[in-house]
């Protein structure tokens, strides 16, 4: 796999992404990096941690991955150019540009890959790009504040693995079936090729490849076009996420229809609450997306020279920007319908859960009544048993005392004394039994 014939000289890899933050977030981000205290000559380290307990610790530890930042240039609260390096990831320097529109550009020149120096094969380059993307995501994770990270993680998971890739080279490429396949390895399946000023711009699934003897000429285009592609990417991500949520809601809805128990209810409640959180993040991002799309549409064409405007026209940027307007309308509509479906399912779940709880409470009340009745019957029985034991005991004692005959002759109200003794002992037995059972019952209830 490393014997590719297409090699390019000093390839520059430029990654572009739109970070879906509002202007306040972006200004805060730029401030954090450029504030006076950070502009001194000392090395500044940035890193992130998931451990909340660090805030209570006097001495804390961090991961070995830390980002250092060196400011090149900045406009306060507006944009910043800096180089960043992740310590712990091979000490690789990357140029980063961030502005208040949320545009982030990461640019590196690859000087060596595998055993190739200076002139690098596209085969090797294709294995460098994922690493550059992951490093750029790590750097951004270190630099942003925790609430901003929450937004990104809800959208992309722990780490964002794809960004728009621009490969810039001064090497001239001859286009044929083989070279197209080779180029696909670094920008995805090739969709379009345009010739510009004796150079080529090749458009792929996830990037563009520019081959021109003077690549710097394309900087403005790289600054502008991949940004629009990145915004389109975020709108696609939102659409995908919303469709995913719609599928989940559909499954929840059919589960509710087919009947659920209490365990299912708590599981569905958890799922709905996750969906709620995701919808809230999507709503926020959708707002930022709408804002940036409106801004780009209203400010088109940008303040570029004829050459750059000609390229933008060739790739139909204006039409692409207009199409983004329709995309955002569609996203807003799906968001609204998902939102109301999630709300109605939550309501339905509450009703089902209340019904179920009521049923269970009624059942419990019935059971309790039955248990009480049963308990009372048992008590009577036990008291009776006490009485029988007392009767038996009195009877045995009398018969073994040898005085039975004498007692038989003493009569009260026409009944022999023996009868009265047995009667009183039996009543006493019943009474003692009652007292003991009540005492035991009180003790158990107290416990």
């Amino acid at each position: 796999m490393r014997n590719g014939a297409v090699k390019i000289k000093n390839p520059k890899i430029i990654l572009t992404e739109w970070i879906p933050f509002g202007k306040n977030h972006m200004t805060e981000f730029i401030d954090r990096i450029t504030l006076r205290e950070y502009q001194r000559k000392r090395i500044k380290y940035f890193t992130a941690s998931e451990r909340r307990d660090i805030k209570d610790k006097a001495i804390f530890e961090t991961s070995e991955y830390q980002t250092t930042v060196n400011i090149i240039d900045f406009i306060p609260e507006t944009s910043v150019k800096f180089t960043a390096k992740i310590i712990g990831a091979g000490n690789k320097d990357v140029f980063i540009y961030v502005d208040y529109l949320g545009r982030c550009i990461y640019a590196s020149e690859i000087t060596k890959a595998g055993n190739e120096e200076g002139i690098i094969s596209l085969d090797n380059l294709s294995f460098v790009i994922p690493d550059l993307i992951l490093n750029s995501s790590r750097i951004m994770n270190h630099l942003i504040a925790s609430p901003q990270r929450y937004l990104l993680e809800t959208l992309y998971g722990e780490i964002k693995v794809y960004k728009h890739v621009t490969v810039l080279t001064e090497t001239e490429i001859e286009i044929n079936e083989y070279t197209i396949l080779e180029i696909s390895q670094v920008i995805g399946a090739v969709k379009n090729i345009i010739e510009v000023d004796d150079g080529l711009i090749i458009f792929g699934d996830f990037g563009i490849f520019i081959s021109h003897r003077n690549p710097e000429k394309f900087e403005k285009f790289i600054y502008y076009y991949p940004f629009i592609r990145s915004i389109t990417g975020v709108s696609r991500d939102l659409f995908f996420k919303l469709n995913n949520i719609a599928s989940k809601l559909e499954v929840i809805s059919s589960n509710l229809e087919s009947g659920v128990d209490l365990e299912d209810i708590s599981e569905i409640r958890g799922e709905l609450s996750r969906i709620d959180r995701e919808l809230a993040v999507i709503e926020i991002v959708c707002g930022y997306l709408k804002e940036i799309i409106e801004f780009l549409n209203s400010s088109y064409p940008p303040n570029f020279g004829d050459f750059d405007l000609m390229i933008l026209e060739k790739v139909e940027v204006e039409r692409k920007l207009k199409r983004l307007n329709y995309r955002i309308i569609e996203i807003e509509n799906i968001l609204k319908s998902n939102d109301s479906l999630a709300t109605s399912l939550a309501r339905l779940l509450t009703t089902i859960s209340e019904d179920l709880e009521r049923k269970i409470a009624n059942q419990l009340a019935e059971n309790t009544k039955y248990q009480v009745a049963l308990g009372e019957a048992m008590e009577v029985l036990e008291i009776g048993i006490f009485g029988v034991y007392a009767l038996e005991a009195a009877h045995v004692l009398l018969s073994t005392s040898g005085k039975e005959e004498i007692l038989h002759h003493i009569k009260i109200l026409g009944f022999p004394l023996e009868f009265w003794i047995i009667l009183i002992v039996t009543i006493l037995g019943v009474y003692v039994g009652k007292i003991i059972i009540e005492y035991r019952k009180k003790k158990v209830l107290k416990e």
Partner: protein
Amino acid sequence: MDENKQKIHYIINLLTNGDRKRWVRQIALFALIYYFIKLKVFKGYDYAPTPFMWEDEIKFINISYEAINDLNYLLDEGYLNEILLSVRGLNDFIVGYNLGKKIDYNFNKEDKEIIDNTLLDDDKNLKEIQITKEGIILKSKKDNEVIEIKITDIDKIEYKSKSYILKVGLCETGL
């Protein structure tokens, strides 16, 4: 038809057994092609990490663009059929392939043997194929032999880079 195209056709033939209702899932085929490239069954193919929606998650997977090119040829010329299956609860279509026109296979025997040994057990029954978060697992029902193909395992390459400082910015463009 060149040997690589024949081999793709053969793999799909083996997996679907010529049945019109059976389809090989695209992601399973990609994983097998990656595995056979590593075993040098496909000569002249290489692979590159590409962002791909794998099991509803975007991941870098090792994709061969030469294989995709040949797959497209086989589809365009009717040697293979492609289906897009919409499944309730799933966001994306499931893509699958099965046989169109039949062909005679005349690629070398050693490669055929490797393909057969990978996909079939000793009794010539198809092994069970499971799709995982990282790729696929081939399981032989008879002797519990397992082959795990991790298509999301990306080769690391040593490289050196330096900052490429762009001159352009908000000031220069007014945007």
